[in-house]
């Protein structure tokens, strides 16, 4: 499923709202949650992560995973948390509106 433009960012923010994750974890979670329907290239994800980091919606730090491997972990900042709330509300409304129109049974309201 191709993502609408801009939704990747809010999805990433939502993913991180459960706690700090590193890049692969984020893709894994998104894939499992969407039953594989969301297919994002890794490059696109990394780009999104960096975009969000530049805008200071997420912050990054290096840590060692429980497997003993170094990884760059991302976490939400408070600004990011606020943005997540706003964006997800807007997006959900948007989808609701579209759904209402597209599931209309007749031309009359």
């Amino acid at each position, binding site marked *: 499923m191709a993502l609408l433009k801009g939704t990747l960012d809010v999805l990433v923010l939502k993913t991180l*709202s*459960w*706690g*700090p994750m*590193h*890049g*692969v974890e984020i893709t*894994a979670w998104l894939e499992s949650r969407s039953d594989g329907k969301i297919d*994002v*290239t*890794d*490059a*696109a994800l*990394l*780009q999104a992560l*960096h*975009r969000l*980091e*530049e805008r200071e919606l997420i912050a990054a*730090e*290096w*840590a*060692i*995973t*429980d*497997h003993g*491997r*170094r*990884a*760059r*972990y991302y*976490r*939400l900042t408070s600004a990011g*948390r606020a943005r997540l709330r706003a964006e997800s509300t807007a997006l959900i409304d948007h989808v609701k509106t579209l759904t209402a129109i597209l599931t209309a049974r007749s031309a009359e309201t």
Partner: protein
Amino acid sequence: MSPQRDRDRDAFRAGVRRLFKLPLFTRAAARADADAELDAFLAERIDRLVLGGLTPADARAEALRRLGSPEADARLVLRRSAQRRQRHQWLRQAAADLREDLRIAVRRFAHSPAFTATALLTLAFGIGANTAIFSAVHGLLLAPLAFPNGNRIVMPMQENDRYRGDSRFERRNMAGALIEAWQQRTHTVEDIAAASEDMFSLDADGTIDTLTSAVVTVNFLPMLGVEPLVGRGFSPGDVVRHGPPNVAVISEALWRQSYAGRSDIVGRTVTLDGRPLAIIGVAPAGLNIPLSHKTPPDMWVPGALTDAVDGGTGSLDISPSVFALLRPGVSVDVASRELESIAAGVPHAAGLGGRLRVMRAQDFVNAGETRALEVLFAAVGALLLISCATVANLLLARAWTRQREFAIRGALGAGRRRLARQVLTESMSLAVAGGLLGIGVAGLTLRVIAALRPPGLDRLADVHIEPAVLLWTLVVSVLTGLSFGCAPAFFAGLHPVGDVLRREMRGGSAGVTSRRVRSTLVVLQIAASLALLVASGLLVRSFAALQRMPLGFEPRGLLYADVLIAGTREQRGTIRDEIIRHLQSLRDVTGVSIGVMPGKGWLGGGVEAEIDPEGHTADVPALGTIMMSPGYLRVARIPLLAGRLPDSTSFSSLGPAGWSSEVLVNRALARRLWPAGRAIGAHLREKPFPGRPPAPWSTVVGVTSDTRIPGESGDVAAYQVYTIDRLVSEVPFVVRTTMSGDDAAPIVKRAITAVDPHIFARPILSGDTYLRDGLAPTRFAMSLLTAFGVVALALAAIGLSGVIAYSVSQRTREIGIRLALGADPSRVVRHVVSGGLGLVALGIALGAAAALAATRALSSMLYGVGAADPPTFVAIALLVGAIALVASYVPARRALRIDPAETLRAD
């Protein structure tokens, strides 16, 4: 959301261990971070795929496939992003650091107000004065001619051996034939025009203004590329041959001032010599054409080149200035050679002798001021040097004091870089503040200069700050402030912390390097100040001598009136006598005569003289011929050195033109023509104009003293011949009054015009004004230089006393010990003071040498005092030495008063 839940959510999962966050300080670090991330990401991916059952090779391929774009591209994108982040972070950090440093710097400056104020003022003055003077110089010296074809305009002049280098006298009478020949045969010159000047009075609301006018050929203004603002310029039909003009173009300044810029100006009239002229147009402002008036003419009238000798006003035969417009691309040299060769082919074209010289109008305009301004350049350079040295000294002294502070901070862990940055910020803020103040001072100074400008240098009114100059002085001063302000960091680097602290405890002597630098600066300061002061002193003395120099006549209380009388010869004679009677009857008038104010109204010409009984003749090309009546010498107070006055009826048989048969010469001319002393009884006559028969010989009956123009220095006076006045329509009067000339002028004018309403009197020149205006430029330069000298002295005193006081205070401990050991206080003081004097002596010696070199360059401007004048040198040297003494003595005395036990204990 409660904070606790947020924290929980932000906690790593079990088993994850945080590393220290690596801040991205450098681009390299940023790149490394991006690379590491991509590698870690891929590694994790591959791990998971392998766990899921793929072989390592397949897992890697799959991981790369999932990447979605080539690895290199992805890497690039990540790197770029990391670098962007790094930049932002760096900027933010730098801004925060800067704010902090500034805060600390300001606080520190506030704690030492004396130092801060002195340093700022010194910088401001150095920068401000320099910029102002340089800008004024630039405005005066390099101002381009303010009309479109300005850089193609040249002026052919006949060089005059007698007056070489004095461009005022170099413009000779260009025969009309010569100009015609040029016009016909030239290939290098597009057009030739001529202009000559006059004065006229404008009666506006009853007040009479003295204004300048110029008679020009019809092609003059178009040749310059000048378009009239209003109305039109001249056309050939406007020229009245053998008669006064009846149209005029007025200047924009006159239009706005006397006619309030009214739009119906065309058609109104202006009066010249009692006759009305119709105004046909307005010329734009700022036409700084090099005529002898230094400001643009107020009015232009058309005229024709004629060969007539006494054409009166409206003709161009009396010494017109000739201007030529070069064809584009033609150089002055090429045109000059061509004009010369054409001139050689015209018979009698040489006229009054001398080589042809073609000069750019641009250079002619600026010729007079060059020397004086070069002097100012040098003075200003010295001032800049002194102010920089002072600032440097102050900063170094302060830096030394703070060595300890920096050592301690370094020991406590402050980064070297951080300390250096802080010092840099301090110096920068001081330099920038000083620079800004300097700009303010520059603007103010320029305004003051413009307000105090002498007449004739009116261009000073338009001078503004030149950006290039400002930049240059700012750069120099800021560099000085910066480099010396960073001394503390430098010192901190020189000595290990421990050494510094130990040394401070011991109170030992100052470091060798710093002391050497400071000593050098002190010596430089003294030397530069001395040189500047000596130059100022000599120029001041020159000026005083100039003022005392005998002019050869007495201008104070003397008035000069030039009067035009109409009518037949008899009528003019009657009116003239009536005027004389009227003037003599005035209460405060002690003498009236026909004659001119020396230096004004001289008619040029050449003279031919018999120099020995065998009839050999000699030529003198340039001469001032003065028409007078016999009483003139008495009225003007010109001494007669030998012989007698000419008979007032001694007219020659030649009719109205020419000299009387008995004439006087001045001493300079007598010496030139008859060095053996046989002037009286010798024959001389005017050199005839080309194609004219020679005049009859006149006889010299007396020798007068030389007269000079006020403000002109130089040992050689002009050559003068005094001849009895012919009754032409223009009659010059001089009047001796007991009042000042300025007060008497309106009275005299009224008396003259009361005689007959048809008399037209030109504006009356008062000798007092003449004297003042003549001396004004020199006085101006003198006051500037004096001001400089004073400022230089003040700066040097500050720098000197600051440095010496500082080093003395460093020796407080030593003084305390000596006193404690029972030394005689006065001996201690002497010991301390003598330490500084060695430097001062060296500075004085160097300064004297520099001063000698400087004054030798100045010697052409000096008058009545030599370039190596001992009294001036000695006086200034003593002055500087005295300041140094005081600067050392005061802090030494102060140190004495401190309780020795205190000084030992302190620290």
